[in-house]
Each structure stands twice: as structure tokens, then as C-alpha cells.
């Protein structure tokens, strides 16, 4: 197999299988990152409507203050919290925190860095994101 045939490209990047929860966290980190960048750009455009005066601002706000707009914001909250929680886990991992002590590689060659501490970090980020989404829903739909 040549090097080109072995390249999976986007398909390889978005395949969450084969490598457990760490691979799912990798995929979610990229998806939430792209989603948040998209939201950030849209938010900059959205807020620029204040330059159109009260009418422009109120018109644009009316478009976002809908049930669909609130559901979209709840998703943004979830993406933001997961990206933050998992990002802190990754930073700590890169800094050597929670990756285990160096040891002789023995069969079955479990990677020391993919341990229960980091798995807890990933699951905690998912749970925190869910809690934040529920809080966001209570604030936005509770009014």
C-alpha cells in the first residue's frame, strides 16, 4: 500500500471508533472548536447590528430571540463547556499532569497517558456540558 492509499483524510479524522473515549474526545474537541469559531464569527456580525441603531438592533434580536435561537444557544453553551473542560484536561496532560510515571513497556502495552484520570476528565467534561445546557435552558426558557 502506498502512502497516498493509506491516507484517510477527513474520514479518518471523523471516525470516532477504534480507539475508545479518547478518540471521541478528540473528535468532539475539533467539532466543538469549529462550531464555536463559527458562532464567534456570527456573534461579531450579530453585535455589529448595534451600529444600525435601535431599529436594526431590535430587528436582528427578534430573529435570534426565538425557540430555535434559544436551542442554538443551548448547543453553543454545551460546546463551550465541553471544549473548556476537555481543553484544560489536554493542557494538564501536555504539562505532564495525570499521565502516569514512565515505566518499562510491557505487554499489552497500555499507553500510560490513557488512564482512568483522563477518562474521568473526559466524562466530567461531558457531564458538565450537559448540566450547563440544562441551566442555560432554565435561564432562556424560564423567562
Amino acid at each position, binding site marked *: 500500500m502506498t502512502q497516498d492509499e493509506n491516507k484517510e483524510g477527513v474520514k479518518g479524522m471523523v471516525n470516532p471508533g477504534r480507539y475508545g473515549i479518547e478518540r471521541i474526545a478528540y473528535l468532539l474537541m*475539533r467539532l466543538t472548536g469549529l462550531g464555536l469559531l463559527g458562532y*464567534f464569527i456570527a456573534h*461579531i*456580525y450579530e453585535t455589529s447590528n448595534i451600529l444600525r441603531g435601535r431599529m436594526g438592533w431590535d430587528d436582528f434580536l427578534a430573529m435570534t430571540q426565538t425557540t430555535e435561537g434559544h436551542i442554538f444557544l443551548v448547543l453553543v453553551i454545551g460546546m463551550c463547556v465541553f471544549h*473548556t473542560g476537555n481543553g484544560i484536561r489536554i493542557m494538564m496532560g*501536555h504539562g505532564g499532569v495525570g499521565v502516569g510515571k514512565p515505566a518499562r513497556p510491557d505487554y499489552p502495552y497500555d499507553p500510560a497517558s490513557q488512564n482512568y484520570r483522563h477518562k474521568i476528565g473526559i466524562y466530567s467534561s461531558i457531564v458538565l456540558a450537559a448540566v450547563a445546557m440544562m441551566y442555560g435552558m432554565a435561564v432562556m426558557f424560564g*423567562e
Partner: protein
Amino acid sequence: MKESTIMKIHYGTALASVGLVAVHILMRLTTGFADSLSYENVLANYQSIPYVVMLELILILLAVHGFNGLRVILLELKQGRVYEKAVSYGCVVAMIVLIGYGSRTIIMTNMGMV
């Protein structure tokens, strides 16, 4: 710039923006969520100098972090001298354009040019 330096900037901008975005969101909860988005409230926010400084910082930090993240994702997908340069310069240009556009809103609203 060395990739290790870029990653330090990536992590630094992430940590700084987490704190500032938390303050930005809490400002929406000081009054009711819908009230905080009223024209008068938003205009008052933009005319407060400390808040405007914070908004500008968030804009710069998130633009740097976001477009570097996009650069990393694109470089993971494909490599090559020309491609890598195109992606890196493209992300820097997009980042500058976004910061410029956001700063325009902040400065014009703060100066009452609405």
C-alpha cells in the same frame, strides 16, 4: 515562530479567555437575560470603558485561539510546504479581518457613532 511557542500562545489565550468570557456571560445574568440584551442596556455596556477593554481583549484572545485551532485542524488533514504556508497566512489574515471588524463595532459604539 516555533510550534511550541504557538502552542503556549494557544493555551495562554484559552485560559485568559475562559475567565473573561465568564465575566461577559455573567453580565447577561445581572438583569434578566432578555432585558440585558435591550438596546439601552447593550449601549450602556459599550459605553463603559472597563467593559469595552474587556470586550476588545476577548475579541483578540478568541480570534487568535480560534484561528490557530482552525490552522491546527487543517494542518492535521493535509501537509505540504505550499499548503501549510497558505493555511497559516490565510488564518492570520482571517484573524486580522475579524479583529478589525469587531474593533470597528466596539470603537464606533463607544464613541457614540450609532
